[in-house]
């Protein structure tokens, strides 16, 4: 499996220049990676024993990327801004040896082990985690859950461990900076937290302290959920995509005044003949889930419609992967993968960048892939693998 990355690379978290790994990248074309770039594991320079050419999973925050190696000697490698005393030669994180899952925010690394969960502060050099909890046998039953979900609830940096009532049957959970979205085993969606930008999907702009079901999605069997900076989205078993929240950068895939303004400014249309703008309907806040229609935009041939990646929203750091720095308020297919006969099987977002797992088209028949999620969102952007991939979930 190969991973590609595109978007913000200000700390070398997608790729680092060979010479000055410490200084970090500062030139425009290196800071903003607009063309999908292979994420390489630099094995040659590694002086410690822990290196790996196979990356199973990637997680990213604003300034860092962590790569999980789960086979054999499982551990986490750190790229981008430094932290936790990770080895300079390959980014091996000592504290992560034998972990079974990992998750990172800008400030902390969360590690799940068979018998415990630990939260580490990237910036502290002490040898002990900020917080740790021992679990017992519960892990075996919930082996398919993912951080930040843990058997007793979920980890967030406001309250560390927050409990969740068992009745919710939490299957997966996504954290935005100020709201939470939860998917239950029954396919129901719950949200709570700040609601001022409509990101909770309850039709109003007030906050919720406790999980509240998104009634507009009642009866829709949801398969995956994601939370961005001020928006949320989910995908149903029938391959429908719903979006809600703030659309200031086009992240909902709905007409955005902010995006149109930037497009007009860059096309040098300074005269008042841009009156048509007044007649268009723009959506800045969508407080109820809206169904987003992907089809009109794509020109994919029927044969290769699987394994395509669609992105939209804020694109100023190249995180949409369309080989430019343009923000979009309509979903658009990332042609790079089509052109190179690559089949996208997974997508993960950092705050301002995107990482995709791909397989070469020939390899698909040979190795059935386990795709845990097809939807991810960054702060102001959404990426979506086409939904055929989600059959396995």
């Amino acid at each position, binding site marked *: 499996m190969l991973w590609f990355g595109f978007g913000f690379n200000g700390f070398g978290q997608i790729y680092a220049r060979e010479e000055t790994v410490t200084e970090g990248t500062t030139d425009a074309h290196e800071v903003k990676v607009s063309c999908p770039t292979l994420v390489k594991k630099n094995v040659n320079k590694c002086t410690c024993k822990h290196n790996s050419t196979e990356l199973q999973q990637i997680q990213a925050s*604003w300034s860092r990327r962590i790569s999980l190696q789960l086979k054999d000697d499982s551990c986490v490698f750190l790229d981008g801004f430094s932290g936790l005393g990770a080895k300079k030669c390959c980014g091996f994180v000592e504290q992560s040896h034998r972990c079974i899952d990992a998750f990172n925010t800008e400030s902390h690394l969360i590690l799940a082990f068979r018998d415990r969960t630990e939260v580490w502060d990237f910036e502290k050099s002490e040898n002990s985690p900020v917080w740790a909890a021992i679990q017992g046998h519960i892990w075996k039953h919930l082996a398919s859950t993912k951080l930040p979900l843990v058997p007793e609830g979920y980890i967030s940096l406001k309250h560390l461990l927050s409990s969740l009532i068992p009745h919710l049957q939490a299957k997966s959970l996504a954290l935005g900076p100020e709201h939470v979205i939860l998917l239950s085993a029954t396919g129901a969606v719950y949200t709570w937290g700040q609601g*001022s930008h409509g990101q909770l999907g309850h039709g109003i702009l007030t906050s919720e302290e406790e999980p509240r079901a998104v009634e507009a999605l009642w009866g829709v069997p949801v398969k995956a959920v994601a939370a961005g900076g001020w928006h949320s989205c989910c995908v149903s078993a029938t391959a429908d995509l719903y979006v809600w929240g703030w659309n200031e950068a086009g992240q909902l895939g709905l007409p955005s005044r902010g995006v149109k303004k930037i497009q007009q400014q860059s096309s040098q249309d300074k005269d008042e003949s841009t009156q048509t703008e007044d007649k268009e309907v723009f959506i800045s806040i969508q407080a109820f889930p809206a169904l987003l229609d992907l089809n009109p935009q794509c020109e994919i041939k029927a044969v290769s419609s699987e394994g395509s990646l669609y992105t939209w929203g804020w694109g100023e750091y190249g995180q949409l992967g369309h080989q430019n720095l343009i923000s979009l308020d309509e979903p658009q297919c990332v042609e790079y993968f089509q052109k190179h006969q690559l089949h996208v099987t997974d997508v993960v977002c950092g705050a301002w960048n995107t990482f995709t797992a791909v397989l070469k088209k020939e390899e698909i028949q040979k190795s059935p892939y386990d795709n845990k999620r097809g939807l991810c969102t960054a702060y102001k952007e959404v990426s979506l693998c086409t939904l055929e991939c989600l059959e396995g979930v």
Partner: protein
Amino acid sequence: MCHAHCSGSRRPHLPSAGASLEIRLIETFLSMTVLWSKLAAVLPPNEDEFLLQFSDKVDSSVVEMLTRSRQQLYNDTTSDRLLLTAQIILDFSWEKLNTGTWRDVDKEWRRVYSYGCLFKVAAICWKDPTEDKLQQAIKTCDMGLLMGAAIMNDIIQSIVKILQSEVKRLNTEEGQDEHVKTKRLKIELPQCPRIPVIKDDLAIPRVKCPSLESFNSDYLLPLKPVILEGTIDHWPALNDHPWSIEYLRSVAGFRTVPVEVGSRYTDEEWSQTLTTVNDFIDKFILSKDQGKGVGYLAQHQLFDQIPELKDDIRIPDYCCLGDTEEEHITVNAWFGPGGTVSPLHQDPQQNLLAQVVGSKYIRLYSPEHTDKLYPHQSSLLYNTSQVDVENPDMERFPDFTQAPYLECVLRPGDVLFIPVQHWHYVRSLQLSFSVSFWWT
């Protein structure tokens, strides 16, 4: 601009300590621009004296970006990298500023945002900026003043002054054709047809220059509204610096301010936007019939942002009767065309509303009659009435007409005392500029 001690030797590949702006610039450019030398004078002379200190709240990765910006400011020969790093800092801190409610935003993030603005302005003004670039830099300063927090002894205020005088210098060289035209325009806009006639028994009482004691005993303590006459005649805004459109353009034309767009803040279509004072005047005051809606520069602490205007007004003496210290009295500007409406609402502080330009129709209801005023139930609008005062819906709000009120047409030179929690409705009758003082 060369100091005697500059030896003019080749710039070595310096470690960051000791790199001075002037030495580097002398060797980079043959002639230093006047603008840059003025900016360099307000910036710390070298990298070491440019302090970047933040609390733990600010992630190390962000401090790393700030450190890179500082290094680029003092060492790079072009501005590309600095512009990029500054934008990264702005983009990241902007996200923090928009997370949670404004009250919850940690001041440290607002400081980070201000540093981002500072670095961006330096990058924009690098080499002989055009007037367009200067205006962009002024706008960036304003964003730092509006959204950020004071840094480096209010350096952004110092910088915006320098940029404004540079713009003026460029303008006097080129001639001010456009603005001269508007100068000739008669700003006597037709009177709004709906000027109410104030009935005597409903008129808010008027008093000329009352003493502090009589104001206190007759109006402040019993919480009774009154119009004070003759108390602001000494304001420069009404004398040697009479506030007019031309004057405002010259003092603040290129400054960016928050503007409310839409008939009233209870409407669905209502929104806030940022625009320059020139654009606000052009779009919403001079050509307001062109379907752009009503624009109102409302409830903005303009005088903190633009100190030159603060010099034209005075805090009324009567405010000293309260507990608030002078520097904590909230002073707001209210500037807009005829037809701006503030729906009936109440505020948690005493208010002295001074009218400087134009006139406003104002109606007051005592808080004793709140039950007849149908306030909204929501947590966002509980201090606002649902009733449209000059066109009440009798079916939905039957008791409204039973509520007694007082009214007035407030004219230049008048100061209206609105007691705390007193409901008030305001409609401007023509181009209007008011200044409000909120205190306890």
